[in-house]
């Protein structure tokens, strides 16, 4: 297998710039790991890991200099593939007929450090936004213009449950290049490719042939050694469980805590709900119509002129979790939840959706 | 008056279906054929509810009088429909106007005659009460739906 040595990691950045990519990668900022614009290897975190729990996210140092010892950053690739606000079109109303122009083509972007759960999330977004007769044009352009350098996870975070959703901790496709970080016996990265342009790219890197001491990144024994302090959630029959639990008193209890802030939908890597907004010049001659993130927790989400359908907090929380873990899988050939655990860490009141499912199961079968 | 035809009509009427021929005969004994010209009132609000009707042909409007607005039709009754249930409920007075929208033929039933027979023959009274309870329930349910104003301009919040 191909190896990139620790001290040569910067070559990745040189190559990406040479290929004309703007680079998005992980940095530490405000006590979190977050994907942001970066330009060089030194921007990446070193020897940092994340501590997560319901309603809690923190960083702490690790022994060693690993670049990728953390799990799900506070944001996700969705921020860049499906940005919070993009123009759909511009229109000049002072022409007859009004003239519509398309917005600019997105810049070529490389995403570095994408975890396997987020790769699965990207694939899930593809099934929503690309499949079918009406692909979202902005998403399609960004998707084609994005080069993905994924990194396997060697451990599971406390709020990770990707093993249960079948979306981690090892990547299976969906990347251009896949790295796995080994700290011993030497600190190196194994390099695999997942596409033709990935192969062409790697041929530009100073990679060596790997030593026989290094195990194959996809060796199942590696994955099973991932720390099992992570939360677990059996997802067998969860769709039926949620459908049967429509009238459960648990939803009222959750409604006492949930503030409908929508944080969960902001950090979720698969959420795709959006709305459209008009902005215009003061004289109304120029109009821009933009696609903007929306959340099913907002009061107006289900609103018709006669009012909203989901008015209570209980109905909105129930709707979110039922879609994410249940009906999504009936709509699209992909998982709605990829087990990244972001919603657990970033819920300000610490609601844990894996706990909700366990609770529903207990209530349905109290003897088990 | 040809009571036989009234018997046959009642036997086929959805409201009276299932009553024994003897009971239908008793009810028919209080009946008379009547007709109303278009625009004529069957009864007025406040009148003593001395008779009720089953429409044979035509169309009858049930009107509410609203001060400053005039008459508001809240229901129309057509062939086979029963007009009036206040004859069964004290103080036996009409709460609405009933007006023929078209030339209407109906069977009129003497309320006092029928109430007396119901007091004597409580089995007959029960059969009639069951059927009229259903009519009243149906009218209430329809009114509830009309009250929901489902077609209304609910855009005003």
């Amino acid at each position, binding site marked *: 297998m191909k190896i990139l040595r620790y001290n040569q990691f910067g070559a990745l950045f040189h190559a990406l710039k040479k290929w004309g990519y703007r680079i998005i990668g992980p940095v530490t900022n405000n006590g979190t790991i977050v994907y942001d614009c970066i330009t060089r290897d030194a921007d990446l975190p070193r020897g940092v890991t994340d501590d997560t729990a319901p309603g809690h996210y923190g960083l702490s140092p690790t022994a060693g200099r690993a670049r990728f010892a953390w799990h799900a950053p506070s944001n996700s690739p969705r921020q860049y593939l499906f940005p919070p606000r993009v123009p*759909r079109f511009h*229109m000049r*109303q002072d022409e*007859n*007929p*009004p003239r*519509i*122009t*398309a917005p600019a*083509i997105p810049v070529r972007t490389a995403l570095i450090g994408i975890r396997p759960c987020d790769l699965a999330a990207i694939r899930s977004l593809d099934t*929503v*936004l690309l499949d*079918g007769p*009406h692909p*979202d*044009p902005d998403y*399609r*352009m960004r998707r084609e213009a994005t080069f993905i350098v994924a990194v396997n996870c060697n451990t599971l975070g406390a709020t990770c449950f990707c093993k249960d959703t079948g979306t981690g901790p090892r990547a299976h496709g969906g990347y251009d290049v896949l790295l796995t970080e080994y700290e011993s016996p030497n600190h190196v990265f194994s390099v695999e490719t997942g596409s033709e342009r990935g192969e062409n790219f790697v041929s530009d890197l100073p990679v060596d042939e790997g030593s026989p001491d290094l195990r194959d990144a996809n060796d199942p024994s590696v994955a099973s050694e991932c720390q099992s302090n992570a939360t677990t959630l059996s997802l067998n029959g969860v769709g039926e469980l949620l459908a049967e639990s*429509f009238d459960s008193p648990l939803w009222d209890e959750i409604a006492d805590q949930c503030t409908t802030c929508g944080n969960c939908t902001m950090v979720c890597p698969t959420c*795709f*709900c*959006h*709305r*459209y907004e*008009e902005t215009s010049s003061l004289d109304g001659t120029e*109009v821009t*119509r933009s696609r903007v993130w*929306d959340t099913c927790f907002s009061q107006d*989400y289900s609103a*018709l*002129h*006669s009012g909203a*359908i*989901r*008015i*209570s907090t209980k*109905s909105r929380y129930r709707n979110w979790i039922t879609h994410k873990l249940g*009906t999504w899988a*009936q709509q699209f050939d992909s998982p709605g939840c990829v087990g990244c655990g972001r919603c657990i860490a970033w819920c300000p009141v610490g609601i844990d959706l894996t706990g909700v499912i366990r609770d529903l199961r207990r209530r349905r079968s109290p003897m088990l | 008056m040809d009571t036989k035809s009234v018997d046959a009509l009642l036997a086929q009427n959805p409201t009276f279906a299932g009553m024994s021929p003897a009971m239908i005969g008793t009810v028919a004994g209080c009946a008379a054929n009547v007709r109303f010209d278009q625009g004529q009132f069957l009864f007025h609000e406040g009148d003593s509810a001395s008779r009720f009707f089953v429409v044979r042909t035509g169309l009858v*409007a049930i*009107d509410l009088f609203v001060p400053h607005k005039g*008459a*508001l*039709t*809240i*229901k*129309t009754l*057509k062939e086979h429909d029963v007009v009036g249930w206040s004859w069964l409920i004290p103080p036996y007075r009409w709460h609405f106007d009933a*007006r023929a*929208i078209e030339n209407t033929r109906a069977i009129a039933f003497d309320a006092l005659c029928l109430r007396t027979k119901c007091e004597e023959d409580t089995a007959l009274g029960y059969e009639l009460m069951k059927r009229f309870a259903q009519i009243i329930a149906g009218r209430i349910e*329809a009114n509830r*739906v*009309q009250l*929901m*104003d*489902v*077609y209304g*301009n*609910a*855009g005003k919040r």
Partner: protein
Amino acid sequence: MQASAEYSGVENASLPVMYRVTARRRESFDTITLTVAQAKGEPTPAFEPGQFNMVYAPGVGEIPISISGSPSQRESFDHTIRSVGRVTAALTAMHTGQWVGLRGPYGTPWPVEEAHGENIVFIAGGIGLAPLRPAIRHVLKNRDEFGNVTLAYGARTPHDLLYTREIERWRSRFDFDVFVTVDAADAHWRGHVGVVTELLRMAGVNASSMAFVCGPSVMMQFTARELGHLGLGSDRVYVSLERNMQCGCGQCGHCQLERYFVCKDGPVFPYKTIGHLLSAREL
């Protein structure tokens, strides 16, 4: 960044096409029908009865509106719009010469093909007659292909009735039974007053009918219940649902009803499929 003046291919398909208002007709105090056509008179995309366009009022917003004209009319689209909010207020204020953007047609149509040889009853409540009108016109144009054809139409008051002249023409046909009722009326009204379900028995609806129902959600529910009492299986009752729609094509998420996207799995559904979902509160 490179700028591009034009989208191409799939990107173009998702931009609204500008249509000019060529006619405007007042149906009632808050409802108008706009006829819109493309700038150079190009034919409209073909549509099936029951489908909708996403109609864009520039600078204001975009909403789903059923196409209310004949499928065979290809030089323009008719949209019947009731003013209930910001966008509909802007659209109903438009005059000939002004522009709207259209995307579509979207959605599942009324199953008119399946109704060949059957007795059809159209049941409309309020503005629900608008999405049914293309199906009614199509059926009347191909009258021989169907059994008995009936319309039961309920509105709030006589002033709220749509398409009054066309309804009179329908009434004058011997092969189309038309029943109209209102919730309340003054003495000038010589027709029925009461809920629309009261017309159904009079209309001879029975187990052999197929029903196409459109109106407020509550009205469709109690109509479906009454149709059940009259012997119609819920697989022979079709309804058209309304939901918040931002994209019209299953991507914005807003129109979801359990697993269904009302914009692409509907808006026309067999009642058997979604009846139980409509009665689940706050689903």
